[in-house]
């Protein structure tokens, strides 16, 4: 078990190096930061001077080498915009993003688990059909669109909730719902289908032949077996959740990492973009490891060596 975790960590380092490489080159495709840092009437000398200061006069390969060298020494560089270490800029913003992502995950689970269970048990009924239609709609609406729709309804028309910004639950509820809607729909559908499959299996027939109450047959025997695919998808979807948080934060003016990434891209603040991406990828890798370890708890047939 321990050696498995160790191997996964080594593997994670390579993943993160890969992510860093992609982030490095993609960031540079956005254009020349010097052009927007200096006034439009700056001379070529002034531009070259700044470029040299930023280390961007060297060939790309050399720049890449220096970037990786710094990275393995945990030196993430400074923001060219704010002149501060990128790591502290991002960790300042990280709690807001985690709050949003966490809240949307919780909302998704609170709605999806009962909805999935009830539609599996009552499959074919009007309730099931209603849930499945809502799921279909939920899965086909892009997050920014849901966000704008919510703002129009709850903030502009009914004036119940603030349009954006951070604060109490009234600020959190709309962006968390918008961000979580996709996951909510996905988990409902997945839990429903895997529970239906579990309910038709032989061990459920055995459980019923023992005279167990339906509550035990479903809650104890079927649910645990149908949770595995759900956990897998939740783990994978956390990546999508972090990605979706970028859009959601912009729509709801939520001061998190996502919003900062967008600003950094617009400013061509390469170091800041890179650090943010590497950090988010790191979170994703850790969550996936936790999910894989959760399997062992849920399914005794799975063992890591």
């Amino acid at each position, binding site marked *: 078990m321990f050696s498995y975790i160790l191997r996964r960590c080594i593997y994670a380092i390579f993943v993160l190096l890969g992510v860093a490489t992609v982030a490095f080159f993609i960031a540079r495709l956005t254009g020349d930061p010097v052009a927007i840092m200096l006034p439009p009437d700056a001379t070529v000398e002034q531009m070259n001077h700044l470029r040299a200061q930023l280390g961007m006069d060297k060939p790309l390969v050399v720049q890449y080498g220096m970037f990786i060298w710094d990275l393995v020494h945990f030196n993430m560089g400074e923001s060219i915009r704010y002149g501060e270490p990128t790591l502290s800029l991002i960790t300042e913003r990280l709690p807001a993003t985690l709050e949003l992502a966490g809240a949307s995950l919780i909302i998704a689970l609170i709605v999806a688990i009962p909805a999935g269970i009830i539609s599996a048990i009552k499959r074919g009924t009007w309730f099931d059909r209603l849930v499945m239609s809502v799921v279909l709609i939920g899965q086909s609406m892009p997050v920014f669109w849901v966000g704008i729709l919510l703002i129009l309804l709850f903030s502009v028309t009914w004036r119940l909730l603030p349009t954006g910004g951070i604060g109490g639950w009234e600020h959190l509820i709309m962006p968390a719902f918008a961000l979580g809607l996709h996951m909510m729909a996905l988990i409902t559908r997945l839990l429903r289908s895997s529970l239906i499959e579990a309910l*038709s*299996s*032989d*061990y459920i*027939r*055995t*459980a*019923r*032949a*023992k*005279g*167990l*109450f339906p509550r*035990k047959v479903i809650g*104890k*025997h079927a649910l*645990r*077996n149908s949770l595995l695919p759900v956990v897998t998808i939740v783990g994978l979807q956390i990546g999508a959740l972090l990605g979706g948080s970028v859009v959601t934060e912009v729509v709801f003016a939520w001061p998190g990492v996502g919003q900062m990434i967008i600003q950094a891209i617009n400013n061509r603040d390469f170091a800041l973009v890179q650090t943010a991406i590497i950090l988010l990828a790191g979170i994703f890798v850790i969550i996936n490891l936790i999910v894989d370890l959760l399997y062992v708890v*849920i*399914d*005794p*047939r799975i063992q890591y060596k």
Partner: protein
Amino acid sequence: MSEPLLSIRNLKTYFSRKGKEVRAVDGIDLDVFPGQIVCIVGESGSGKSITSLSVMQLIPKPAGKIVDGEILFEGTDLLKLNERQISDIRGNEISMIFQEPMTSLNPVLTIGDQISEVLLRHRSITKRKALERAVEMLQFVGVPRANEIIKEYPHQLSGGLRQRVMIAMAMACEPKLLIADEPTTALDVTIQAQVLELMKKMRDQFNSSIVMITHDLGVVAEIADHVVVMYAGQVVESADADSIFEDTLHPYTQALLASIPSIEETKDVLYSIPGTVPDASDFPIGCRFAGRCEKVQSSCLEKMPELRVVKPGHFVRCDLV
């Protein structure tokens, strides 16, 4: 003789498949007396499993439905009970074990948990007492290291051990009736013999009645007191075990017996009954075995023979006998 423990009268269980009516069980009569081992034998698809699932009322819904008949258990019609009442009987007074020991146990729960939960459901005892009883039952069915096995999961056990666990689970509440649906089919021969011995031991210990479903006449010869031969959803012959083997009357039973491989005569080709069981959604009007019967006559195709008494306690559904 005493009153029957279980008495099935004119049981009909139909399925609807693609708008067609599938007559899986089509008017079965069956009696099981206390302490008796009754074997239901017949080819695959003859309705044996659906008969047993009907008794437990575990027919897959909504496709399947018991449309007619009575299932009297100690005089009460099980078909008149509500879900709560029937669940009080399941696992307590009537238990069932299934063919597939590999998939019939829950893969994510420990053996101890799965055995003790049936006791916790039907007896008012503590969790600890239930686990102790689970260990006792496992020792009784011959599972080694019972104290450790209760903490293990089904995938850690062999097929034979799992079937012993199933038996321990089914017998935990000392049921009056045990229904075993091909419990040995998935096991190899030596394990099969041990499991059959175990079933007899169960009957002797708890004075339980056993309904044993099988397509293997070797199993029947080994264990049965009484034999019911099923074909295409009906009973075609019913008699005590000796009469079935010594005084076989129905052409289908004769054909089944002819297809057992025997040790003395080494035949080059194993005899098997030609043709297949008719489709349960499209039975012929006459005798359902007529299409495969060597003795078929034109009258067989016109009228369905009744199940009638030929000798005391010997019933046959064939007009030629």
